């Protein structure tokens, strides 16, 4: 399981092992300040990072890096 969320520290505290940062609490995979095209790119990218995370072997709790 991979968790995408904005509150990374809380995810760590409750023991989530694979974490991908979200954008904000009300829209973890959106951003109203972006154009619809850029917002889509962002969501597509972060979901892609989450999929990569599922296929990555880890030894400890890991927060995966997002580029957008």
């Amino acid at each position, binding site marked *: 399981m991979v968790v995408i969320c904005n509150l990374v520290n809380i995810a760590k505290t*409750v023991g989530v092992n694979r974490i991908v940062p979200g954008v904000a*609490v009300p829209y*973890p995979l959106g951003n109203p300040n972006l154009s619809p095209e850029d917002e*889509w790119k962002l969501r597509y990218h972060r979901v*892609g990072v989450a999929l990569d995370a599922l296929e990555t072997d880890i030894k400890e709790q890991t927060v995966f890096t997002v580029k957008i």
Partner: protein
Amino acid sequence: MLKAVHYINQFFGQVGGEESADFEPVLQEGPVGPGLLLNEAMKEVKITHTVICGDNFMASHPEEAVARILKMLEGLKFDVFLAGPAFNAGRYGVACGTICKAVKEKFGVPVITSMNEENPAVEMFKSNMYIFKGGRRATYMKQDVEKMAAFADKIARGDKLLPASMEGYFPRGIRHEVFLEDLGLEPKCAADRAFEMLLKKLKGEPYETELPIPKQERVPIAPAVKDLRKVKIALVTSGGIVPKDNPDRIQSCSATKWGAYDISKLDRLMAPDFKTIHAGYDPEQANKNPNVVLPLDAIRQYQKEGRIGEVDDHYYVTVGTGTTQAEAARMGREIAQRLKERNVGAVVLTAT
């Protein structure tokens, strides 16, 4: 007058000691053993029947024992289920917890038992039921029975039930908002209470938090999925995204329910067919485009590109605000169980 059924083991049921621990469950009319004391102590509740079951029988064949006992109870009318007290007897405690949990789930009646804090069953079952803090040995029978009886009477009278620490049972991990007046305490504003706590802390004096944080749990790390094209992926969220009529009436905060909704024919979640009912964040963006919380559109895109294979027909959702850790853990277990049954191999969970 409410009716109660009481569960006891072979020893307290006067069948015999350790040599009779394989005793198969029976139903008897009226109270037996500790039930006589309970019956005497309760003013508003009457024990109509007693279930007696050997501790080893319950420990060795829990499913069969529970099924048989539930069947015995089917024909009865009862409002409360009592078990024990089990003191520090491990097997008896687990038996009381097991049957109380099953009875509560099947019949929806309040279940009350009593155990010593050292009884391993306390940790296993305290979040599911009222377990009163009992003595270590049967010499505490009278005190333990009286606590259970007083609480059963309160339920029968419809009295306001107080927090765990005041009633005397082990905290179930459920938070309620209460006013101090209603607890018979002097009202004092939260800032004053917090300040007093801080002063005590600075002086190194003992103080009691009003918001105990449950202990951190470590979760074993799941191995990496070798090839996402070959497993089924499921989407899960605590962000409260539901079909627009919220068919299962999942609560907007302090949720105790979760739902599973069909997405097999959808390429993305469309507003207003889907919306959020989560009361802990501004819903504007999620209601405009629910995919910002549950990214079905992106998942479908990856599916089209062949990056992933099958996506589960349903997504799974609850609301994660004001939700206690105990409830969250229960719902998590239930959802995980469902995912296993559906052969899901990987989960993308979005949390708000």
